[in-house]
Structure formats: C-alpha cells, structure tokens
C-alpha cells in the first residue's frame, strides 16, 4: 500500500467536516476587509489627508507594533496599513487550527484509528490535511483579492495582498503540522501553534516599531526582527507600495521545510503517539509515578519540556536585541515612550524598559502555559480517568493541587530560564543588565501568572462546563488590560483588573515586595476558593 493511499477520501472527509467552519472564516475575513477598505475610501478621499494620518501613525511605535509599517499614501496603501496585519493573523490562525483538527485531533479522538483501519497510507492524514488547508488558503487569498477589487482598489496590489495572506497561512499550516507531530494532544498542538502566531506577531511588531522612518515621514523601513518573523514576510512584500514579490518565496520555503520535517518526524512514531518512542513500555510503574503529583507531572512532562525549550529560545532572541534597541534608536523618543508604556514604567533606560516589557511578555507566555496545564483538569474529568482516580483514596483538593503544582512549577522554571537566557544573550552582545537581575525580573512575573492559574482553578471549581472558554477569555483580558492597557489608553481602573498591571517593571524599576505579596495572596485565595467549590460539586463527567 502506498504511503499516500486514501488521501482523496480523507480530503473529502475533511472538507465535509469543515463545510461550515472554513467558508464562514473565509467569508467573514473578506467581509471585514471589504468593510475596512470602504471605511478608508470614505474617511480619506484625498492624498493629503492620508499622508497626514500616516505621518502621525509613523511616529508612534505603538501603532507600528500593532499594525505594521505604512508603505505609501495611496488609498490601497492605507487599506494595507490598516488591515494587512489582521488578515495575516486570520490566515495563520485558520490554518493552524485546521491542520491540528485534521491530524492530531483525529488521532486523539480515535477517529484516525477507524480511518487507519480502512486502508489508508501512513502519510495520507497529514497530506490530506495540508491539501485542504493549502486549498483553503488559496480560496482565502482569492476572496481577499475580490474584496479589495470590489472596493475599487487597483487589481495589482490586491493580488499581492491576497497572495501574501495565502502564503503566510500556508507557512503557518507547516508550523502547525510540525507541532501536531511533536505534541500528543490537540490541546498542546493548538497552544503551540497559537503561541507561534503570537510570537511571530510580536517579533515583527518589534521590528516594525524599531523601524527607520523615511524623510517623507510616511514610509518606515522595518528593522531586522521583522525579517525573521513569518508574519513579517507578508508585510515586507509591501502590497500597494514598492512591491517586493520575491519576499513571498520565504513563506513557501518555510512551508516546504516544515512539511519535510513533519513527515520525517511522523515517520518515526506510531499513530496516536507523540515523538516519544512507543514500543513496549514498563510493565510496572516507577515509584516516581505513584502519587497524584507524580501522575500530573508525567501527564504534563512532554509539553512542559517543549515550553521550556521555547522559552530559552525566545529569551536568547530577546537578549540579543538589547544591543539593537540601544544602538540604533537610543535617541528615538517615541520608542522609549512605547517601551515605557509596555513595561508600565515612566522613562527609564531604554534597554531596561525594553527588557521589562519583554519580561511582561514572558509572564504572559508563562500564564498561557499554566492555563494549558490546568485545563487538563477538565479533560481528565470530562470523559477521562478522573472518575476512577477520585474513587481512590485521593481527595479532590489533593488532585487539583497536584496539577496546580505542575502549572506553577513549570511556569517558574520557564521564567527563570527565559530570564537567564535573556541575560546570557545580552551579556554575549556586550550588554550590562546582568543575568541575576533578569532572572529576578522573570520570577517577578510568576505571581501574576499564578493569579491567572488561580482564576482557572476557581472557574474549574465553579463552572466546570465553561472552564475552557472562560480560562482563555480571562487570560486574554488580563493580557489586554495588563500588557497593552497603557498602549490602548485604557483607564487605570480597568488596567488594575489584570494581575500583570501590578508586577514591578524590573529591571526598569526596583523590585517592590508589596504588589508581589498582594498577587500571591490573591492567587492563593482564588485557588483555595476553586478547590472548595470543586469539593462541593458533582463530578461533571
């Protein structure tokens, strides 16, 4: 049997399952873009008005961070500036979720087993998923071209815009394909892919915010970080500006490399397994496993290691940027203001503010990790082994505490490693912030991440059937209010809702114990309340 046998059947199956989801996503994106284009045409009929608006935007690194760099003063260029970043993210998320849905999630739910029995080659599932998602991206691109053209914008730029979005989506399909091979659960694979989208967005945001403004005050040339981000490439093609179509080869190359990698990884594992080798396992449990904590650690071990590796890589990247921040843009007041806003400090040293802002991001990533770990409580409870475990002598509070310990312990390890990696990379490029200071700065984020964890435990105890959506919603709100609250200009009372608002912005300011102790108390209270609620409720299987 060929390795690809049955691919066609699987493609049809996937299309059937996605017959509502993908068309809605694509059509919705096209409608948003059409509306966005119409709004620009309506608001800015003349070139002078557009130039003024873009000059204002170009001086604000915060705007550049969120939207990307302006490419010109044409109508199309302004539509691009206002919408491209968002469309790229939509394409990326559509692709990652769809790939995970048709690969790892199928395996996890056992659907793939049924399919596997019906004479399907071992490469068929991934091939089918990629076929569907690449096709979806083509349709996505065409729909966007249609939306721009129907708004009366020039076709040439529309095509570049559409192609940029389509190939970016494809690159993220490749990233998700690798994630689906590495991680055992759809939950982890989705978290991995979504984090990849977030990090890519942030990296290109930094590159754009640090970009160099041209004399006309409109165009901005991105700094190098934009070039290492798959989301940056779509923008660097500059639809409706001085177009550079060749950049769009980069996402295609990434797709090819990822697909090759995913097949290589997939060839080494069994259906349903992650990359950890299968074959006969131990016939008896080691002492390590035989406790609620040992079990929780075992269940989270593989994904925790993945997150730790990612944190180190991200930390090294951030650390090596200190140099760029300082050298290139020490004099740019807008940038220092943005960094101050992100870090939640007034004006400190630029590098310190930058690192403080990045520590907030590490704190956010650690909180994501904690949410992912704690949501396992729910998947174990709903149709999982929790019923049998809680019928043994393990009390409910102890069971929750074991998972909470994995979440908080893992988050702590991530923050220490990220801080250390940042410090080491900074030292390597001649910075002087200091490894210990940055480790401390990383750890200062732990109480905030733990507060998010406490919130998840509370919701798990009180509203178990809604915990997945409420947990992620809570995380998004605390990130939006905490990390970006100042950039968005939210009132202080709203920003105070987020635990991240209260973290001292080390190394830009000195550590203060007050807010940290406060957060620890709040986190403990939330978690304790969640455990009490859980002990009082029915097991919701």
């Amino acid at each position: 049997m060929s390795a690809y046998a049955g691919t066609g059947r699987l493609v049809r199956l996937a299309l059937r399952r996605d017959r509502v989801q993908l068309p809605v996503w694509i059509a919705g994106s096209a409608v948003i873009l059409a509306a966005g284009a119409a709004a620009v045409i309506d608001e800015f009929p003349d070139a002078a008005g557009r130039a003024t608006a873009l000059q204002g935007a170009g001086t604000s690194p915060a705007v550049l961070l969120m939207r990307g760099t302006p490419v010109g003063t044409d109508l199309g260029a302004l539509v691009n500036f206002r919408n491209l970043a968002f469309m790229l993210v939509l394409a990326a998320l559509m692709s990652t979720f769809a790939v995970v849905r048709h690969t790892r999630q199928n395996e996890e739910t056992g659907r793939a087993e049924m399919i596997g029995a019906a004479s399907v080659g071992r490469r068929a599932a991934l091939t089918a998923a990629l076929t569907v998602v690449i096709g979806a991206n083509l349709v996505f691109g065409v729909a966007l071209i249609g939306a721009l053209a129907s708004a009366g914008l020039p076709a040439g730029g529309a095509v570049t815009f559409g192609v940029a979005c389509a190939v970016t989506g494809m690159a993220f399909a490749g990233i998700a394909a690798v994630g689906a091979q590495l991680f055992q659960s759809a939950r982890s694979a989705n978290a991995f892919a979504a984090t990849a989208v977030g990090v890519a967005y942030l990296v290109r945001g930094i590159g754009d915010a640090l970009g160099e403004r041209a004399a006309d005050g409109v165009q901005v040339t991105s700094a190098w970080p934009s070039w290492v981000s798959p989301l940056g490439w779509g923008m660097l093609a500059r639809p409706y500006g001085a177009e550079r179509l060749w950049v769009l080869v980069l996402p295609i190359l990434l797709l090819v490399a990822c697909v090759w990698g995913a097949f290589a990884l997939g060839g080494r594992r069994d259906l349903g397994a992650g990359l950890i080798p299968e074959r006969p396992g131990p016939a008896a449990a080691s002492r390590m496993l035989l406790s609620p904590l040992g079990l929780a650690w075992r269940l989270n071990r593989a994904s925790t290691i993945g997150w730790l590796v990612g944190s180190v890589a991200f930390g090294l990247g951030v650390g090596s940027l200190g140099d760029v921040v300082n050298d290139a843009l020490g004099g740019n007041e807008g940038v220092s203001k943005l960094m101050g806003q992100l870090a939640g400090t007034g004006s400190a040293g630029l590098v310190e503010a930058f690192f403080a802002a990045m520590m907030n991001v590490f704190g956010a990533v650690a909180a994501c990790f904690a949410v992912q770990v704690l949501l396992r409580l729910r998947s174990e409870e709903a149709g999982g082994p929790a019923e049998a475990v809680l019928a043994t002598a393990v009390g409910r509070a102890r069971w929750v505490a074991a998972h909470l310990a994995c979440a908080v312990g893992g988050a702590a390890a991530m923050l220490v490693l990220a801080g250390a990696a940042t410090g080491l990379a900074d030292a390597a490029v001649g910075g002087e912030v200091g490894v210990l200071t940055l480790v401390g700065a990383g750890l200062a984020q732990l109480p905030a991440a733990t507060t998010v964890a406490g919130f998840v435990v509370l919701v798990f105890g009180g509203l178990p059937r809604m915990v997945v959506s409420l947990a992620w919603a809570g995380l998004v709100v605390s990130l939006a209010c905490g990390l970006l609250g100042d950039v968005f200009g939210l009132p202080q009372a709203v920003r105070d809702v987020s635990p991240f608002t209260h973290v001292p912005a080390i190394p830009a300011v000195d550590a203060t114990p007050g807010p940290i102790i406060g957060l620890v108390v709040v986190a403990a209270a939330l978690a304790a309340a969640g455990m009490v609620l859980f002990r009082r409720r029915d097991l919701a299987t």
Partner: protein
Amino acid sequence: MTDAISVEGLVKTFGRTRALNGLDLVVQTGEVHGFLGPNGAGKTTTLRVLLGLLRADSGRAQVLGGDPWQDTTRLHRRLAYVPGDVNLWPNLTGGEAVDLFGDLRGGLDQARRAELLERFRLDPTKRCRTYSKGNRQKVALIAAFASDVELFVLDEPTSGLDPLMEAAFQQTVREVSAAGATVLLSSHIFSEVEALCSKVSIIRDGVTVESGTLAQLRHLTRTSVVVEAAQPITGLDALPGVHDLVADGGRAGFDVDAAALPGVLRHLASFEVQTLTSRPPTLEELFMRHYGDAPESAAEATSAGAAR
C-alpha cells in the same frame, strides 16, 4: 452484622431529569448483590452517589458505616470501584495504570497482581491507547481485585469481555466473596447475575421495584408450564392464577402464579398427564416484567414461545 451499603429514599436530579426518585438499596456485608435495571434507570448514578462523586439531593446513603460524601477518602481506602466507562491515560502502559490505581487506593498485593495479569491475559507493557474496551476494563478489574479491600463496586464490568474472560471474572468474584468481601455488581448480563449473586435489586426510573434473593423474586412471579395429556384438557381457564393459556386438545401451555400451582396440579391429574414440564421464570423473564412499558405483552410473548 452491619450492612455494607444502605440507601433510603435517595433522590438525585440533573436539571429537569430525575435520575433517582427515592431509591432504596440494602447490601449486607459479605453478599454479592446484583443491581439490575434498564438503560437510564439510574444504576451508574446510584453507584456514583455511593462513591461520593455525586451529591444526592435528599435521602440517606451509608457505605461501610460512613457517609460517602463526608468521609470520602477514608472510605475509598476500603473499597474498589470499576467504572462503567474505563478511561485511561493514553501514554501510560496498562501495568503502570494498574499500579497507579492500586497505589492511590492504598496499596497492591504484588503476587495477586501477577496472578490476575496471567488470568486475564493482559499485556502490561502496552500503552493504554492501544487497548480495546475489554482490555481497558481488565486494567480496572485487575487494579481493583489486587487491592485488599472490603467492598467492590462494579459498574457493568464485563460488558466488553469475551466469554473466556467472563469466566475468569466470575472465578475472581467468587474468590473475593469467599474471602469475605462484599460485591455490588451492576450488570445487564443475566447469566452472570444468576451465577454470582445471592441477592438482586431491580430498579426502574430511579426507584427500586424488586429486591430480594432470586428464590424470593421467583416466588413473586409465574412459572411456565407445558403439559401433554391423553385426554383433552378443559377447565383450566376457569382456575384462578392461570394466565396466557394456549390449549389445543391434549396439549396446553400457560403461566401460573406460584400460589396457584398446587390447585392447578390437582386439576390436571384427572386428564392422564403424559408429560409435564415446568420452568421457573428466568431472571430475564423476571426482569422483562419490570422492563417493558407493557409487561403483560412481554409475558405473552415468552409464554407463546414456550408453548410452541
């Protein structure tokens, strides 16, 4: 001797569904108690209440002398539960899962574990994700039976086992029962319940409709009789306690209430009976009377089958 389990007037609602509606259940220490009822009758719900996984709305439940909701972990050291749907961790091996459940319950008898692995033919080195439903049930059964506990709560434990493994299961239940343990066994397999259980409770729509020994339950219901005589049989339809009569000359088939049986036999004697077979109701028939919404028609169907 105290009862291992005693339940009185248990009520449990899920939103608008009334899963338990005043259920009573008594399981004496040392007995193997069959727990029967149609799908959705409330068996699993009852067992979950007894394990403190669900909290009853009202009524009283006692397990091993304690309150299952208050003394949960203390009681759980003394009992073992096999859920109806055994879900395991996909990347743990079967052996690891057995050890884990055993240890979390308070310890495993290693010799017994090895013996049971052998008896149930379970490969403990395989990942749980590769196990079939029956193999997952075996993991839970081995973990339960290798624990030294006083009470076994088993929710349809054999629904995925093949006949060979069913026999292994019955042997194991007899062993733990002989050693003095109490077993509460929910099941849809009548032969298993008839073979193992000294007492049976039948529930329906969240209430207990019958409870007692099999002999007691049989006494409450009818015996099927098929008789052939040299002379045409007459007058049976006039006798009290005779139901579903199919008479055809010297041949007759009918059901008779236990209390009316002596009178019927005296009446038959005058027709020169040649053969007479009488069969006590099977558990299945007992059960069908409480199952279908029209128990009479169910009884008709069985007696017509017997007469043919």
